[in-house]
């Protein structure tokens, strides 16, 4: 048993449901007790989904416990098949059904006889894998199922597309900024003259899966989701894949060069160097931002990074390599894939933390006292408690991390977004200086609630004029500090002398 207040990755079935609900016209039936269908709430609320989430539960109740599911699961599958005509129904085991050890495969086989659509059992073990691993596995399973089916029916299309083309693998429901990333990747591919063959699983139809081998290569933008499917396609159809996450200027260039090489190997004479150069120097703002005096002020500031493998690794590299920020700790909760993470960030940070215990991460942040944190919603709350700003870069996330506006993390527009996020997370340079001059950071005691409340203290002409010279955004603070100083000493007129005395006193 483990005492847990918070978890970074969800249970396995969430991963399977994310895949099922990403595809078009695929329905998932959970073998689960009442209340386990909160995935529907998450999808409906977080993604503000307009359609009903295609997930239902075949309820495990007392009767099932006593007598087994018997006809219930089969009936629920065939009923759903008739009601909604899905192309595929995925029977999804949960922690409860794992222990019941019912022969779910048998239910699937029986239900298949009466169903028009396909029926499949998600092959995930609840006690061995988490949400991310289960999603990866389920996507692989679906892809394999439909390619085998097509092969058996001899429906596999021959050859490759005429022009260079790509499958983008791993975009899914409830993924961190996945929708925006997908748009950005499509734009990038079109800039490079590459056709997008299929995007899976988001928005894809299972009927199109047989076309996957027609692409020249696969692009797997996220470390956590899609690699299994890509490796399967490599093994079966000799399709190369690119698994470099195009997040940050340097990594985006690296990703594009890898694509260039793969296409070149297949006979396309492409040269993306000029495109990379042009984007980096003149189109994307991130490289210029690194050079600008704004970013200079960030030099050597301390940051802690924590998240999933993809985002924590990419962010660490961006901060250290592209912005000159001192990453004191980089960490991931993807314990099962820790070696990859260590290898990726080893040279870019002082310390690596592999853990899914939020207490451990919170303690590390408190010990290191960084100027900013880049983490999940959990780290944001740690930051709130410790008064350290936090930019959210990875799931688990809340509704505010599903923005309506366009906010990719990948590609060249992604580099702009990340630069904004970093810049806004640190206390702005100029403000930082002024706060230092006028008495440190936020004072806890607030005298009046309003920013510039009328006060009973009298500022004489000179002092008022001096106050007006203070830049607007710290003027209120200077005014408050001075007035507080005067009140404490029973001074009722504020002169220049009082002002300076206040500055000295508060500074001391």
């Amino acid at each position, binding site marked *: *048993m*483990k*005492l*847990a*207040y*918070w*978890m970074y990755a*969800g*249970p396995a*079935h*969430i991963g399977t449901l994310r895949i099922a609900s990403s595809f078009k016209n695929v329905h998932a039936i959970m073998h*689960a*007790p*009442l*209340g*386990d*269908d*909160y995935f*529907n*709430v*998450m999808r*409906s*609320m977080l993604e*503000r*989904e*307009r*359609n*009903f*989430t295609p997930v*239902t*539960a*075949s*309820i*495990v*109740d*007392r009767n099932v*416990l006593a007598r087994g599911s018997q006809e219930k699961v089969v009936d*629920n599958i065939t009923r759903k098949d008739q*009601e*909604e005509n899905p192309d595929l129904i995925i029977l999804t085991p*949960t*922690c*409860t059904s794992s*222990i*019941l050890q019912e022969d779910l495969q048998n239910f699937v086989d029986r239900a298949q006889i009466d169903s028009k659509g396909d029926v499949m059992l998600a092959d995930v073990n*609840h*006690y*061995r894998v*988490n949400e991310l691993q289960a999603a990866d596995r389920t996507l692989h399973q679906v892809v394999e199922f439909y390619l085998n089916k097509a092969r058996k029916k001899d429906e596999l299309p021959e050859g490759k597309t005429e022009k260079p083309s790509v499958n983008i693998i791993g975009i899914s429901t409830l993924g961190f900024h996945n929708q925006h990333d997908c748009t950005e990747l499509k734009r990038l591919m079109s800039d490079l003259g590459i056709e997008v063959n299929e995007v899976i699983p988001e928005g894809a139809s299972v009927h199109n899966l047989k076309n996957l081998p027609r692409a020249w290569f696969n692009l797997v933008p996220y470390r956590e989701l899609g690699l299994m499917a890509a490796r399967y396609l490599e093994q079966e159809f000799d399709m190369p894949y690119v698994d470099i996450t195009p997040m940050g200027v340097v990594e985006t260039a690296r990703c594009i060069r890898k694509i260039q090489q793969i296409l070149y190997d297949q006979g396309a004479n492409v040269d993306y160097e000029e495109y990379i150069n042009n984007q980096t120097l003149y189109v994307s703002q991130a490289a210029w931002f690194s050079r600008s005096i704004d970013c200079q002020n960030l030099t050597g500031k301390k940051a802690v990074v924590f998240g999933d493998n993809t985002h924590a690794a990419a962010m660490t590299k961006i901060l250290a390599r592209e912005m000159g920020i001192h990453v004191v700790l980089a960490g991931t909760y993807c314990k099962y894939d820790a070696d990859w993470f260590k290898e990726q960030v080893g040279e870019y940070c002082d310390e690596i933390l592999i853990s899914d215990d939020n207490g451990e991460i919170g303690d590390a942040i408190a010990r290191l006292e960084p100027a900013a944190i880049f983490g999940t919603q*959990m780290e944001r*709350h740690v930051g*709130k408690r410790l008064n350290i700003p936090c930019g959210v870069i990875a799931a*688990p996330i*809340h509704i505010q991390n599903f923005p309506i506006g366009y906010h990719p993390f990948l590609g060249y527009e992604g580099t702009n977004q990340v630069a904004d996020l970093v810049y806004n997370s640190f206390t702005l340079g100029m403000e930082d200086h002024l706060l230092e001059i006028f008495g440190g950071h936020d004072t806890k005691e607030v005298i009046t609630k309003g920013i510039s409340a009328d006060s009973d203290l009298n500022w004489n002409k000179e002092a008022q004029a001096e106050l007006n010279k203070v830049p607007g955004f710290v003027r209120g603070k200077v005014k408050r500090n001075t007035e507080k100083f005067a009140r404490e000493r029973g001074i009722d007129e504020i002169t220049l002398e009082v002002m300076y005395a206040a500055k000295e006193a508060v500074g001391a």
Partner: protein
Amino acid sequence: MTLAQEPTALTFECETGNYHTFCPISCVAWLYQKIEDSFFLVIGTKTCGYFLQNAMGVMIFAEPRYAMAELEEGDISAQLNDYDELKRLCLQIKRDRNPSVIVWIGTCTTEIIKMDLEGLAPKLEAEIGIPIVTARANGLDYAFTQGEDTVLAAMAHKCPNKAPIAEEEKEERNAISKLLNFGRKKEETKVEDSKYINHPPLVLFGSLPDPVVTNLTLELKKQGIQVSGWLPSKRYTELPVIEEGYYVCGVNPFLSRTATTLMRRRKCKLIGAPFPIGPDGTRAWIEKICSVFGVEPKGLEEREAKIWESLEDYIKLIRGKSVFFMGDNLLEISLARFLIRCGMTCPEIGIPYMDKRYQKAELDLLEKTCKEMGVPVPKIVEKPDNYNQIQRINQLKPDLVITGMAHANPLEARGINTKWSVEFTFAQIHGFTNARDILELATRPMRRNNNLKELGWDKLVKEEAKV
């Protein structure tokens, strides 16, 4: 519509039970806040933990006094010893939080692997010196708010039988009533004490926010009825004394196990009343309690009329409109009864579980309300089937659907007004004073749509998507 088509007696149906609701372990979210010195330990899997984390949103970050005892493969296959594991975690909780009680919440998994929590608790309790209350709030047996019912039923066993010394006890209870009359002087309290009529002790059960507790207690005080205690109280150490022959009364419709436990195990007399939700319900609740103690209620009629008057601006918005309850928190009967009194019609009340004995008075009031308002009585659907319900909603086109969050956005996108049922669980809806809050919730979609109606943005899904 002919009269013959309108059913006049309540009809009960039971569907497949394929409906969406919260897992009953969600009760820890409000109970740990209510019982200030408690710690709730949910013994379950990642699935349970992920639910609490997501359903309870930001509350999780306030260093909650609840946690998961997350079962691992070794626990399932009994390679690890349950007792030792629980002892380790409970000692850690004792060290870090020092609670006055640890509540173990049994889940589906502990049911299936038959972990004997009730057996382990007394042993461990003796060993670590903290009371342990065991509640089986699992999704195999219960829905959403019924979780509270299982916890309170377990707590009912822990209520002291008899005050140690009568004198001291009286002093203590005075202290409680003093708290309720905060600010008033002791002498005054004593004077007011004498205003209570002589009646057997009354204990109310159901977890409510403290302002509502004060409010309902004062409401009864006006009738000369003294509330001897509440189950639960603000602290575990202040659980009320329950002796044989005490009277008990529920404030929420989902507390049937607690009621049964109080009657059968603690030999209390249950006052079966409608629940104090809405001014009509509150009045009926007080009247019933008064009648049991032989008190002639004073000023209730005027009080109720006044509240109705003050609600008129909201009632205007919903009068003559229809409301459909998909059912997920067992407050449905009381809310429907109140909304019908407000002038709405209600074709269907979905409800997870219907205890016709515990809710008898509420059901009677519902029937009476329908008759008086001249509207057909609703069809009550136990263990509803959400898929079928959505077909019915498509046909009936109700003006308001009260539903869980899984269906709210998809229905809104199809031009159907919805209100999340969960909000009724967390809002203050009891007593005369809070009637306005119920309508504030129920009319919000109407008010929002009045603001937006010029825009023509009703249906925001492309094809009439099949459901």
